[in-house]
Structure formats: structure tokens, C-alpha cells
């Protein structure tokens, strides 16, 4: 479960002054659902997800992630989340197995449990050809498999995915969507950000449309279409953004 309560983040820029990257954001993601943050580049999606992952500290407001407050108990939050960002990379000089072991150990997993989990994920994601290969020598698809396995290695109850299909081809993007659906079916709470409307439409149970740090609208795709009209989410988005 994820509950954001008036999350706000203000950055001070020497030239531009105070920049409000996230402005009193409140939303909820229940277990077994996917909440999508939909917005343009620079809308505040990454900042919001980083706050939920305790990488950034909110200027005001807070959130409860996996039952723990991100400000008072950030370490407990991080034990219960898996964070994946489309523009973060893996360690080129480590093998797939070493990468998984590293993050598994940092998640507090013991060796025996970790090795068993790696075997399990190896079968689930068909990692046989990548476990002993150095990341630097992997194709994009192989890296994505390892990234995804890394996120889920400790079986977190909350998944925070920041543009996870960034840079992926159609096949790999589709595979990622399938995984997200599977995790949803497993009862995980999934926060997912994207600027691609069709992705949000296909995956998300609830969507928050964000622009200049503000949530312009929230609801399921069908609710948003009913409320704002248009053929698809793209029409809804354009309408909302043009109004502001």
C-alpha cells in the first residue's frame, strides 16, 4: 500500500529561484493495483517517485509506503520496496549473478535464501544465458531481465517503476508490461510513471495526470475519459494541460 499525503518538493535554483517540482501531491495505490503517474518530461514524476523511494526528502508532506512513513522510517520503507528507473544502469564489470547477489544481500537476504531465489528467478525470467555473463557484454534485453530480477529479488510488496520501458524495443517493452501484470496479480502495489499515454491506458488501474508538479486529475482511465471527454487518454491529457 502506498499513500502519498500532500507530498511537496521545492528545489532552490540559483538562477530560477524556488522550483516547485512536486506540489501537494496526494494519491493512493492499494495492493494488487497499478497507479500510473502520467506527465510530460519535467512534470515532476521522477521527483515524486524518488521521494517515495526515500532517495529524496520531501520539503513538506509525507507518504506511507509498505506501512512505514518515508520521513520517520526510511530504512524500513526501503526494505519493502523495489525501485527501478529506466535511466539507471547496472554495473558493467559484474556478472548477472553477482549483480543479483549484491542487491539481494543489501536487501538483507541470507546466502542460502538468496541462492535459492536466484535459481527461482533464473527459471522464471529465463536467465540461464545471462547469470554468468558480465553486464557490459549483455544486450539491452538481457540487461532488462537482470534489472527486473534485481527489483524483485527480495520479493518487495511495493514496486516503484520510473519509466521502466525507456529505451526498450517493442518486444522487451511488452515483456515488461507482462511482468507488471503478473506482479499486480501477486498482490503488489505498483507505482508506475510514464509519458506514453498508451502504456498508462493498458496497465494502470488508476492514473494521476501530473503537470508542473501538480496533480491535475486522478481516476481510472474510464473515469477520466468520462469526466473530460475525448477518444483516449491523450485527448484528456492535452485538454488538461492546455487548460493550465
Amino acid at each position, binding site marked *: 500500500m502506498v499513500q502519498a499525503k500532500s507530498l511537496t518538493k521545492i528545489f532552490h535554483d540559483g538562477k530560477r529561484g524556488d522550483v516547485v517540482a512536486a506540489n501537494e501531491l496526494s494519491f493512493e495505490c492499494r495492493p494488487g493495483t497499478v497507479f500510473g503517474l502520467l506527465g510530460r518530461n519535467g512534470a515532476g514524476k521522477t521527483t515524486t517517485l524518488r521521494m517515495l523511494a526515500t532517495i*529524496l526528502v520531501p520539503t513538506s508532506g509525507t507518504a506511507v509506503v509498505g506501512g512505514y512513513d518515508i520521513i520517520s522510517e526510511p530504512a524500513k520503507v526501503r526494505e519493502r520496496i523495489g525501485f527501478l528507473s529506466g535511466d*539507471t544502469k547496472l*554495473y558493467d*564489470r*559484474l556478472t548477472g549473478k553477482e549483480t543479483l547477489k549484491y542487491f539481494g544481500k*543489501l*536487501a538483507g537476504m541470507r546466502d542460502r535464501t538468496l541462492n535459492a531465489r536466484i535459481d527461482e528467478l533464473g527459471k522464471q525470467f529465463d536467465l540461464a544465458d545471462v547469470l554468468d555473463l558480465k553486464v557490459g557484454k549483455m544486450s539491452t534485453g538481457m540487461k532488462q531481465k537482470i534489472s527486473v530480477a534485481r527489483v524483485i529479488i527480495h520479493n518487495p510488496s511495493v514496486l516503484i517503476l520510473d519509466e521502466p520501458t525507456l529505451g526498450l524495443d517493442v518486444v522487451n517493452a511488452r515483456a515488461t508490461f507482462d511482468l507488471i501484470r503478473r506482479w499486480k496479480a501477486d498482490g503488489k502495489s505498483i507505482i508506475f510513471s510514464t509519458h506514453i499515454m498508451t502504456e498508462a491506458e493498458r496497465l494502470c488501474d488508476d492514473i494521476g495526470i501530473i503537470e508542473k508538479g501538480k496533480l491535475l486529475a486522478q481516476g481510472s482511465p474510464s473515469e477520466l475519459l468520462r469526466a473530460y471527454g475525448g477518444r483516449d487518454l491523450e485527448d484528456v491529457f492535452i485538454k488538461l494541460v492546455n487548460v493550465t
Partner: protein
Amino acid sequence: MRINNVRTVFWKEVLDSVRDSRTIFLMIALPLVIYPALFTGMGYFERTMREKQEEAAVSVAIVNAEDAPGLLAFFKEQDKLNVQVVPKSKESDAAAMIRERIAKVTLIVPGEFETTLERGKAKELEVLYDGADMNSLVARDRITSLLNEYGNGIVRQRLASRGLDVSILETVKANPKNVATAREMGAFAIGTIVPFLLIILMSAGAQHTAIDVTVGEKERSTLETVLATSASRTEIVFGKFAAVLLFSFATAIMGLIGLLLTMYSGLSFMSAIAEEKLSVSGGTILILILSLVPVMIFLSAAFMAIGCFAKSIKEGQTYSSYFYMAIMLAAVVTIFPGLEIGPKGYAVPLIGVLFLEKEVLMGSFDIVHIVTASLSTLAMAVGAIFLSVKLFSNEKVMFRI
């Protein structure tokens, strides 16, 4: 702080760094091969140049030799000396002869040179040479030595002509005797140059690894993922710091091995140790390493702090270079022989430890100096680690937002 997380980060950084060819080059190849090659090469070239100079004939031009027939004859009797006689009319060309390498040294004999000497007086002789040419400098020394020998010969003649014995010139004979043992001489030689070299090596090992595991991770976009794990910022920093410290230590040990190989190779100018003119004990080596531990910790922590602060690898390397130069300047001060610092000097981080090393290697154990020097450098190290944790936890610094 959970030690398991520190250990996990540490081993990952070690594994990652060891697989980096640049790290292996800086840590093993450079200290083990290049420094010994450098010293051996320097020794070889120094010896070769010296032998060449000893074997080569020195060319000397004498202007107005007509006024110094005795001197001319004396010079012509010498081995490996090419004497060119230049008429007085060509005196203005004397300097040009040296610049054009016609002669290495030119003597300008003043008028009535020999007749003045025969009257029992002294006469000055100009010796022209090229101070920017090593061969000319060597030639100058030889010619000056020959002139002194010629002058001494004249003194003996003058004394003999007055019926005096030459032995009246002999008064006090100094007979220096070195009471330092071979071990003490070894410690002196080692204490002067080796700490300086080891600090350079430790800095190289620490700098590269520190930049790579901090700002390098930022640039390679792998940092966010680690920050989202359950490891705290402090645990991550300590794990990285431990890896930097290990590589700094390893580089220093490799450098020490390289230096020892150089000493015992018999090929370098440090081969006096192999020839048993100096002696280095295992205890000396151990003291050397132990006394540098606070310095190692400080350097590792300082480079970590620089790496945490930098926006890019390039920026980190630039800041590190300035810091590196400051370290070298501080370290080079300790090489100057005879330079001593008062008791308060031992409280100066880094410099205090270097002087302490010299002192300890010479067999002097002052507990106040040991505690003061070690604690001051360790205090700086703790400050640098604290700063690294602060910087690593600062969003503005880590994400430049």
C-alpha cells in the same frame, strides 16, 4: 550501522575495481614495474654519463698561451686533455668558442702571467665555461683542479727556492669517521626518500578508486539504485571507504616491493643497500608501514570527500590533482636534510607523521611525538570521513539539483 551492509558494499567495490584494467595498472604495474624501471634507468644513465665523462677527453682552449709557456706544457702533459692554442688577437672569440662547442673551457691568460708568478706574485686567470652544458661544467671542474695542482707546484718551487720544506704547509689533517652503523645509514636513506614515495603511491591508489566509486557511480547512473536499497548512506560510504583504503594500501605495498627489488637489483643508484653499505631491517619496513597507516586513512577519506563533492569524473580528477599537488608539496618538505620541526610541528597532519617516521627510523621513540602525529592525522581522517557521509547524504550534492 549494520556491518553486513558495509561488507557487502566493500566486496562489491573491490570486485568491480579489480576487474578494471586501469586499477590494476595503477595498483600493480605502475609501482612494481615503472618506478623500479625509473630508478634503475636513472641509475644506469647516471653511471653511463659519468663513465663517458671520465673517459672523454676534455677540450680546453688557451688564449695568449705565449705568456704562460709553463702552464701550456703542464696541460699538454695531461691525459685526455685536448689543448688548443688561441692567439691573443682572438680573445674576443673566447666565449663564442664555448658556445660553438669548439672547446668546453677557455682559459684567458693575462699579459705577463708567468713572469708575474716568477716574481712571487699571484695572477688571476679567467676560466670561461658554459653553465648550461653539463660537459662544460665537468670540464671546468677538471681544469680548475689542474690549475690548483699547477699552482701548488709553483708554491713548492717557491718554498724550495727559499730553502723551506714543503711539509710546513701541512697543519691540521681531518680524519672523518662515521659512527653510524650500516643499519642507521640505511634507516637514514630510507627515511629520507621512501616515505615521500610511498605517500605518492598511496595517493595514486586512493585517488583513482575514490573517484571511481563516488562520482564515477554518479556518472554511470548506478547510484540511485543503491540509494534505494535498505543500506543506509553511512553504510554505503563506509563500504566504499574501506575499498579505497584497501587499494591505497595495496598500491603502497606494491610500491614498497618495487623499491626493495630496485635496491637489491644492483642496477640502480639505490644499490648501496644491496652492496651492504647500508642495511634495512624487517623492523624498519614494518615501522614504515605502520606509521603511514594514519596517512593512508586520511588520504583515502579526503579523496572520497572530493569524489562525493564533484559533479563529474573530470571535475573530481581536477580537484584531486590540486589536492595531490598539495600533498606532494607537504611531503617534499621532509626530504630536505637537517630540517627539523619543534614539538608543535608533530601536530600538523601529514607533516607530523612524516617527520615522526624519520625520527622512529633513526631509533628515536618519543611517545609524545608518536601520539601527537598519529592523532592529528587520524583526526583529519575522521573529519574527512564525516564530510564524505554528509556530502553523500546531501541531495543537492549527490544529484546536483
